[in-house]
């Protein structure tokens, strides 16, 4: 059975088309839901929040969008066990909504994805995300190999996880740290972090495992043609690389 995936867009969303295209190429029944049609969101089985600048991000990224009507439906869905996947600005919104790490109340986040360091500006750079949980901990990551290394692009001005030491400890203790930054050879270390993120964090997951938020964009290194070092001879239009995470998500949605 195939579940229906909504990719809701806010006025400043800018990565919706590639996100829908990739979900479809991975076998998902995905469609865009416009902000003026938010009331239809309850009908969907899963949500993917894509990148951009939802409400301009003039205060902390995602903070305004987290209070939008769209998020009422996403939050309700998440609480009922629907799968929610946030990428970049989507990750910031999911975090600001309190869905990840989920150690506080709804819309009372206990951490933030905040201004990059040491370069306090927008940074576009190729990165690798290494899975930091047992993939089976979450339906969304269940189909990934144990030491999955997901190629992606960091493209944000705010992606550095920041929280109090107590809240960072909660993230570690609750196994919320889903992805960390790594080098191409798979070595994960703080020096692989492109933005000084606490815990070298590139992605967070909630306790139940049905909400995942990652800061870099795997959907920008997701087809053979957009790998920096293309594997020649393969179908250039086939999804690969960063698509592995979307395939795993779609598989979970389709059951």
């Amino acid at each position, binding site marked *: 059975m195939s579940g229906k995936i909504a990719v809701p867009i806010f006025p400043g969303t800018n990565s919706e088309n590639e996100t829908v*295209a990739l979900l479809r190429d991975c076998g998902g029944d995905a469609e865009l839901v416009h902000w003026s049609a938010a009331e239809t969101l309850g009908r969907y089985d899963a949500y993917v929040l894509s990148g951009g600048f939802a409400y301009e991000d003039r205060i902390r990224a995602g903070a305004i969008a987290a209070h939008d009507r769209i998020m009422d439906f996403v939050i309700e869905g998440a609480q009922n066990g629907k799968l929610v996947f946030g990428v970049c600005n989507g990750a910031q919104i999911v975090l600001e909504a309190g869905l990840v790490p989920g150690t506080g109340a709804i819309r009372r986040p206990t951490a933030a994805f905040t201004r990059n360091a040491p370069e306090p500006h927008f940074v576009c750079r190729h990165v690798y995300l290494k899975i930091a949980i047992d993939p089976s901990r979450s339906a969304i990551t269940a189909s990934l190999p144990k030491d999955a290394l997901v190629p992606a692009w960091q493209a944000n001005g705010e992606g550095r996880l920041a929280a109090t030491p107590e809240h960072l400890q909660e993230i570690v203790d609750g196994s919320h740290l889903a992805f960390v930054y790594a080098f191409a050879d798979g070595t994960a270390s703080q020096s692989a972090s492109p933005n000084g993120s606490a815990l070298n964090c590139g992605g967070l997951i909630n306790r139940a495992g049905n909400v995942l938020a990652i800061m870099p964009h795997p959907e920008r290194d997701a087809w053979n*043609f*957009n790998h920096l*070092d*293309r594997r020649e001879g393969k179908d250039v239009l086939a999804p690969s690389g960063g698509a592995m995470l979307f395939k795993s998500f779609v598989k979970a949605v389709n059951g």
Partner: protein
Amino acid sequence: MVNQAPVNVALRKDELERIAQRLGREPTAAELHAFDAQWSEHCSYKSSRHHLKKLPTSGPDVILGPAEDSGILYLGEHDGERYGVVIAHESHNHPSQVVPFEGAATGIGGIVRDVLCMGAEVVAVADPLRFGRIDDPDSHQRSVAVGVVDGIAAYGNAIGVPNLAGDVYFDESFDDNCLVNVVALGIVKESEIVHSFAPKDAEGWDIVLVGKATDASGFGGASFSSLTLDTEDEEANKGAVQVPDPFLKNVLMRASYRAFAYLRDHNIEAGFKDLGAGGVMGCSAEIVSSGGFGADINLDEVNVAIENMPPEVIAVGETQERLLWVLPPHVTPEILRIYNDQYTLPQIAYNARATIVGRVTREKKYVLRHRGHVVMDVDIDFLTGSIRDELPFTELQPAVLRDEDIVYPQLATDEIVDLLPRVLAHQAVCSREPLYRRYDAVVRGLTVIPRGAGEAGVFAAVRGGKLGVALSVAGNPRYGRLNPQRAAELAVVEAACKVYATGARPIGLTDCLNFGNPRKIEQYSEFVAAIDGLGAAARELGLAFVSGNVSLYNESTAGMAVAASAIVACVGALDDLAKTITPGVKQAGNALFVVGNVSPGFGGTVFAELLGNDDDNVPMLEYPQLRVDLEFLRAAMREGVVRSCTPVGAGGTLAAIARALFAARGAGRSLGAEVDGEAYFDETPGFVVEVDDQELFLRLAGAATVRRVGTVSKAAHFVINGESLHVEDLYRVWSAPLAEVYP
């Protein structure tokens, strides 16, 4: 008719007299400002149009030459549909010098609208930049260099259009006049092109203004851009710079895509145009007059941000983020619904909306109404017709080569090894990564070669298809200063070579001509010579210019003009993305060849500067040989023997080999190169090519200029005639200089 007191405009006395004579009365304030905008150099091209006619503008790859807001080149077929690449090229020099962040951001905003209004999806931008000396951290030049980049990044990143190509040079001639050129590309099916003129049955149709509420920003922008910058007027000039809003633009773009889809689905023809210079007046007058009509506009219907603005400000203010439709009345309600209800424009920005502001008239007059008064009533062809200013110039000395003057310095190996790090650290050669890292190069998920990974960007043109597009820019001010004509030729050839290096076939060009004061003979002569150079090179390569822009008066009050800067962008077509060639070397043992790169002359090169050589023989092109070399390169690429390719540019052949090693490093491969003394620092166009099947490569070469220069090696060392340098050390030297400027 309201009679106004004379106002401050840039029109000359003879032009004022001509207007009054034609009208048979004194012009109103609105009319004065309208003519001021339309007859400015910026809008009318009065001193440049007749020279621009010398450029080739047609050819088998041209779908639409320079006639509307953008040109269109034929890209290829996908799924039985013919696809075109829409390209526009503009400058935003004056505003960026005065208000760097907003000025540059506005440049991106404007160029994106030029492409959008052809019915295209905007898919890429590029930014050729020229800044002054940036060594002093407290200098205005440095703040311009940083502010411009941040402005471009903030705008382009927000609207979700990848920045895929560009270049940057630093030169003292730009101390008082930075150059901020911007290029945008769009993709459109040939059958779905929307034109920037009122269609043939448009009489009585609605004129619909879409976007941001008109305010007083950008008032006098067109005529301001046609003046020499005076630092004393800086505060006043800031008012002529528009305020950009990329977030509103993001919504406007997406809503416009929806409007295109609606018109296409219902098979409805319409006109669509960007509001640029001259605001509501300039745009509405041009869209109707180019269809052979007139217009009647009611300024009271224009959505404004400020109450009680004078009519001339509403009419010609250049507020950003606005577009204008000419629509059959039965379609208007649905288009208004898309913008205002589905995309909720009024809730996105204060008083933003789509509104009917007037109608198309059969009578060829341009009428503006305001509070019950007619504030403008003129013959529309008189207003928008081309006016011509024949300015004096002298033929610059033609580009003849003086062989006897060229003395190539012979360097010993230790001198070459000494010089290489200095060349790599030179501001014309060093890594631009600290700068372009601020740009989103991968949004849309269709990027194949991102900014910085090659000399040209490459992207997938159609989602789900194999068609690709390559985009490059070029224009070396060091050559421009010495020889404007040859510099222009080299800009064309260099831009084309960057495209060839990706495996794509160049299909067309655009230019942005940045020069000084046309009223000074020597500066105007440089401009005329550059056009000759552009035309010559384009004809030799069989390419056409399909759009472009002229920016004159890039001169400070102290009288210093910018180095002659004919900046060129080149678009290439790839029929299969799998055939893209990347610059990073691939495998140890492969041979390195130089293809082309034979033209004599090294004036203006980094190498000449570092050696203190003042030779002014800018490299001279030998076209017949160049064509043979380029044809061979394409054949070798088609045969699959070319594993990587890097164009030779600033820093010469050795710098190109170093860049090929750095590119491999960026793709996660640690490799080196062993070369002999045949490789050098000369910058004439050519390629460093990595080859696996040498025999086949040489068999294909025929009469092409090919010389073997070395081998890719396993250890990450750059070995020159036995002298070894660490690639990591060279990479650090190459990466450091701009990291200080763009931390």
